[in-house]
């Protein structure tokens, strides 16, 4: 089956047993963290899990059409789910890290706005190229009318295609996805940075000023790594392409949230354990 013809039917089914196992694993990992580092370590891990869940959920909003979109055969942005989400989220992380000194809330919101800004510009330029470079209007293949604008879609699909370009709902989905991704990545960074700033001076017997470059680098690398873990995990949940929040595949998000929480908890535990004296 091609990516264009892929339907969410069988792959979209929820497996309650697997979900329950995932939640139990999450509780076990949080329990391990509580035993080895009950205070700041556990708080950092919870922040990492929340950030990971935001990234996983946000990736579902990003309209990605993959190879079929590159030929105008399907709506969405012509690249991979994980890569586009990572590009937007990391642009947000860049802004959020810059604002880290101004507090958690300002930094996380700044990161979210940075990710949303990247996606807004990219989505607008995609439609610009489709309309003015290729002479093709936007049309969704999954809904009869755009849920926001009410524009009809079917008659704007060219013959033999599933649709093309980015209808307005996909644009909005892209901005929301970038915003959630940027906020999640920044939250992970800030939580790990706070942990490392607290723990590393005692561990390495150096001053706080000396520890800053190491703490910033380590927290930044873990944030980028966790971003890619969650974005790729969600890409497997989406299986190929998605148009945005109106796509039937979007309903699969609960499964990705559990998977993202477990994966983030496991990776976050490693990030915590490297600074906890055993």
């Amino acid at each position, binding site marked *: 089956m091609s990516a264009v013809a892929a339907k969410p039917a069988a792959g979209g089914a929820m497996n309650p047993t697997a979900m329950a196992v995932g939640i139990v694993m999450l509780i076990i990992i949080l329990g391990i963290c509580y035993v080895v580092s009950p205070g700041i370590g556990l708080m950092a891990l919870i922040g990492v899990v929340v950030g990971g869940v935001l990234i996983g959920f946000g990736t579902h909003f990003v309209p990605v059409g993959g190879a079929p979109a590159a030929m105008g055969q399907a709506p969405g942005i012509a690249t991979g789910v994980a890569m586009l989400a990572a590009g937007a989220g990391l642009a947000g992380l860049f802004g959020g890290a810059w*604002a880290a000194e101004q507090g958690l809330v300002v930094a996380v919101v700044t990161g979210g706005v940075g990710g949303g800004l990247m996606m807004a510009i990219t989505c607008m*330029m995609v439609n610009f190229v489709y309309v003015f470079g290729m002479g093709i209007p936007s049309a969704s293949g999954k809904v009869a009318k755009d849920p926001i604008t009410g524009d009809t879609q079917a008659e704007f699909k060219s013959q033999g295609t599933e649709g093309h370009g980015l209808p307005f709902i996909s644009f909005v989905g892209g901005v929301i996805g970038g915003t959630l991704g940027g906020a999640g990545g920044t939250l992970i960074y800030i939580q790990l940075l706070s942990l490392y700033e607290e723990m590393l001076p005692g561990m390495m017997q150096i001053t706080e000023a000396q520890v800053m470059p190491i703490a910033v680098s380590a927290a930044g690398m873990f944030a980028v790594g966790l971003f890619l873990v969650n974005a790729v995990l969600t890409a497997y949940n989406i299986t190929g392409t998605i148009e945005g929040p109106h796509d039937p595949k979007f309903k699969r998000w609960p499964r990705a949230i559990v998977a993202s929480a477990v994966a983030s908890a496991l990776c976050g535990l490693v990030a915590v354990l490297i600074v906890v004296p055993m």
Partner: protein
Amino acid sequence: MEHIVFGIGITALAGALATVAGSAEDTESNIGSQGDPNSQVQLAPQMGFLHRIFNKAVAGEPPAYGLWCCLGAGLAWAFMAMQFNPVLAIVLGCVLATFVQGVYATTAYVGRTASLAKFGQPVYVDILKSMTSVTMAHAFIAIFCTVTLCHLINTALGHPFPLPLLGLIWGIALGAAGSATGNPYYGKERQYQNQKFGAGVPISASGNIVRFAEAGERNSIDNGFFTHKIGGSASGICFGLIVFLELWRTVLFEQVSAGWGAIIVGVLIILIFTVIDRYIEVWARKNYGPYTEAKEASS
């Protein structure tokens, strides 16, 4: 005041570098056929259409550019730690990263094309010799501009991330912006130049890419020449706007209302782009019109 003026100057320079980087990235990926449209280059021989198009898509553009820019930035950072002049350090780091890109391009082309041997697709040595150096030249421009803007962000604007991490982040963002904006133009307008303008490629036409030029067989340098005019320029504007506006709102408004100034300006910019996008969408619907009569669609 002097600090802000200096920051705006750096922001403008970084935005200009990003524009050149985005344009070079898209052209490089189209000459090397690394984006999603390469699925058709890989598919064509299987449908009986042998061609002389380069084929190096063993990784997406974002991770590939994340690697090359991180490598260039990391090596430049190491050279600077060895007391090299920053300009020399960045040039040397980017040259070494470009050699890695050249090795990647060579092995990817040979490997991907050899996998099509059972369909009779030959590995053209002259294509390998003539195209690889052209992709390397474009890759050097893209990597050099990205690493330079990362260096400016790090040293002149004071971003806390070290240079290699900034290289990774902006390399991935460069690949994401370039592939998102440039791929449709390469895929639809160039590879399927024989299809109708103003419509998507019918799924039944998959694999039947244009393989002949005005004289002789088409090669990937022709594709880079063609796509650079719109796809490359649009990718450059896209990445340039992302870098410029992200830096501009931070440099000018970060100190307003304890950080909320930059957030409000960011939201306003998003709303402006939303209005522009909606205008483009409505403009296309009005001016191009529907392909068929309106009818009830099945979802």
